């Protein structure tokens, strides 16, 4: 309770003291209670923009760093001539090597405190422009001191050195404390307030003691230690991107370069109405093949070994052989037949030879019969003999990539029902989607598909089935120029264009991100170093672009590249 009253007293005193401090310290936030975000930057910063360029100049010590970007795209501008003039002094900035679109100069006016009206003349290859702005150089920054004696300490130093200001400050503090004492009638509070008064009096009277700033903590209970900490610790922390109290983002130019933030200017456009479908990648019936055996047998590798999954094969290439499986009974039967045929062959040959010797005395008909008999037996033997040794060659039916290999060398396979190899031609893949609304199925003109990893496929409608499958109409699309890495069976999300148009702002898909509550938003580039989230209503146009139906004004600069990274700034 007492602490709270003490805080109230110091708050009243601080607010009364504010007008004294303000002229020396304009534009800096002293606390966190402002509803409108005021960006506290470590270094004096000038932000300005025109229809061509966006410029952020940051004073670092005696050096002015100028970040120059395109207004519409936020691309850094390289090779421009940047002339900065202020206080009647003009100087050309030189590009900083190794950095894109950064120029530096060391103007003498930068060491003078106060506000400087700056004119920047920019001449790039394709555009020239004049930009203006005001750069506020605080007294402490101009003195170029190290860390401690900046901000509030410097103001306090100024107050101490000026007797009039000091008198005013002392009176203001007295007034504040007395107000609190008058408001609170309890003795203990009065004691504390008296102690605070004595402490403040000592503090103000202590002369040069805290001109060097190390003692900021000694008056931390005056609610000013916090404010003093901002400029002191600012060189590192304040120059990192951060979320402002109203939810917008402060992203310094160096961070924007690092995240390679790019924007486009929103333009209203007409786009086709779309529907979304779910589909999967399938192989073209003419671009996919199975290899099966026609009989049971044992697998033997082909000349180049068995094909492995992922190997490219050509049509007609021998993938494997099948040595026919002949049972023992069959084998002995065949061998018996061969023996019989060979026996008959020997008899037939000797008979034909005998008849030939008696040619002229035996009827010609007998000789011809014997010859025919011998030829027939030879053919029978020729047909029988390879039955035990001939292998069946398994050939690739099409050129493509082996997608399945179900066998190993030496494996015994059954005929027909077993698929040994599957081959798919990756250049002839299709997408099969299902539509539940027959009107949609009939209205589709063109479509694009997105895989789970974000690859976009352009699709050409081949046709739709007349027979429903599970109450849905299958639609078949051919993939134009299929990218590598596409797999059969892969699920895809289709965005199909139907007749009719919708108007809105067309943006790339990566522009739309989701905020903490899951609402789709885009980031608008509001001022050079500030980004504002805009909740939007979207409709997909195709796999890569979306249509913003509401939430973005025409002409706004919307972040395309780097939106996901901006979204993670906390």
């Amino acid at each position, binding site marked *: 309770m007492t602490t709270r009253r003490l805080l109230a007293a110091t708050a009243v005193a601080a607010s009364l003291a504010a*007008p004294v401090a303000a002229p020396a310290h304009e534009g800096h936030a002293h606390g966190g209670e*402002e509803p409108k975000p005021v960006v506290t930057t470590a270094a004096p910063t000038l932000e300005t923009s025109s229809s061509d360029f966006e410029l952020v100049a940051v004073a670092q010590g005696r050096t002015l760093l100028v970040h120059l970007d395109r207004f519409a795209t936020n691309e850094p501008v390289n090779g421009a001539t940047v*002339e900065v*003039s202020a206080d009647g002094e003009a100087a050309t900035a030189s590009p900083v090597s190794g950095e894109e679109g950064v120029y530096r100069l060391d103007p003498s006016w930068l060491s003078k405190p106060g506000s400087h009206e700056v*004119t920047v003349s920019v001449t790039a290859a394709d555009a*020239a422009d*004049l930009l*203006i*702005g*005001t750069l506020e150089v605080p007294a402490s920054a101009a003195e170029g001191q190290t860390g401690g004696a900046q901000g509030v300490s410097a103001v306090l130093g100024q107050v101490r050195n000026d007797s009039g200001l000091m008198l005013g400050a002392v009176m203001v503090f007295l007034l504040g404390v007395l107000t609190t004492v008058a408001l609170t009638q309890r003795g203990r509070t009065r004691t504390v307030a008296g102690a605070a008064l004595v402490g403040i009096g000592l503090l103000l009277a202590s002369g040069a003691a805290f001109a060097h700033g190390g003692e900021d903590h000694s008056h931390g209970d005056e609610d000013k230690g916090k404010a003093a900490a901002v400029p002191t610790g600012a060189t590192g922390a304040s120059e990192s991107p951060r979320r402002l109290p109203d939810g917008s983002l402060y992203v310094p130019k160096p961070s924007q370069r690092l995240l390679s933030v790019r924007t486009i200017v929103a333009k209203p456009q007409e786009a086709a109405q779309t529907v979304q479908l779910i589909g999967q990648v399938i192989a073209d019936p003419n671009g996919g093949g199975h290899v099966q055996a026609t009989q049971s047998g044992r697998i033997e590798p082909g000349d180049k070994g068995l094909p492995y999954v992922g190997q490219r094969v050509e049509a007609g290439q021998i993938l494997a052989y099948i040595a026919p499986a002949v049972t023992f009974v069959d084998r002995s039967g065949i061998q018996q037949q061969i023996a019989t045929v060979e026996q008959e062959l020997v008899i037939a040959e000797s008979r034909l030879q005998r008849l030939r010797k008696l040619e002229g005395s035996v009827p010609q008909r007998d000789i011809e019969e014997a010859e025919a008999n011998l030829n027939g037996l030879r053919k029978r033997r020729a047909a029988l003999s390879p039955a035990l040794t001939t292998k069946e060659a398994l050939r690739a039916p099409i050129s493509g990539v082996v997608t399945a290999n179900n066998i190993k060398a030496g494996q015994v396979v059954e005929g027909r029902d077993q698929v040994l190899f599957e081959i798919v031609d990756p250049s002839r893949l299709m997408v099969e989607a299902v539509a539940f609304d027959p009107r949609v199925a009939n209205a589709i003109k063109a479509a694009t598909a997105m895989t789970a990893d974000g690859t976009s496929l352009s699709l050409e409608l081949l046709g739709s089935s007349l027979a429903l499958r599970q109450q849905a109409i299958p639609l078949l699309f051919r993939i134009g120029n299929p990218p590598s890495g596409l797999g059969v069976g892969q699920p895809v999300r289709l965005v199909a264009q139907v007749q009719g148009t919708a108007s809105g702002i067309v943006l790339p898909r990566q522009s739309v991100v989701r905020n903490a509550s899951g609402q789709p938003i885009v980031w608008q580039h509001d001022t050079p170093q500030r980004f504002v989230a805009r909740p939007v209503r979207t409709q997909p146009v195709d796999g890569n672009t979306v249509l913003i139906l509401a939430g973005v004004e025409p002409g706004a600069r919307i972040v395309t590249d780097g939106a996901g990274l901006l979204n993670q700034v906390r």
Partner: protein
Amino acid sequence: MKFSTLLLAAALFTAPATAFADGPKIGPNGGQRADAGPYHVEVVLKGNDVVLYVTDGADKPVDVTGAKAEATVLANKQTQKVALEPAGGNALKGQANLGGAHDSVKVVTALTMPGQKPVQARFEMGHAGH
């Protein structure tokens, strides 16, 4: 009190940007008008003459005796500085080399009223300015 000071500071800081965001406004002399600190300034290009008219926030003419002004003119990719001298009433006048081209000329004026700090204003001349 503190909050209003901050608001004032913010307003002063964003004034040039606001002037740009509002787009060109036409002044009583037919030129473009913009905010410059507490004043409204209007730039008219006639031939090679650059004329700057100064009015206050309520568009009442302000006597510019003793005032100084400088115009930075970007025409044909060339930047030139033109000193503007008081030319009676609320006008300051100077000579620039515009080469007859008044379109896509950009002008920045820095006006210093007697006893005050300089204030800047920016103009983009297009067809609307004539």
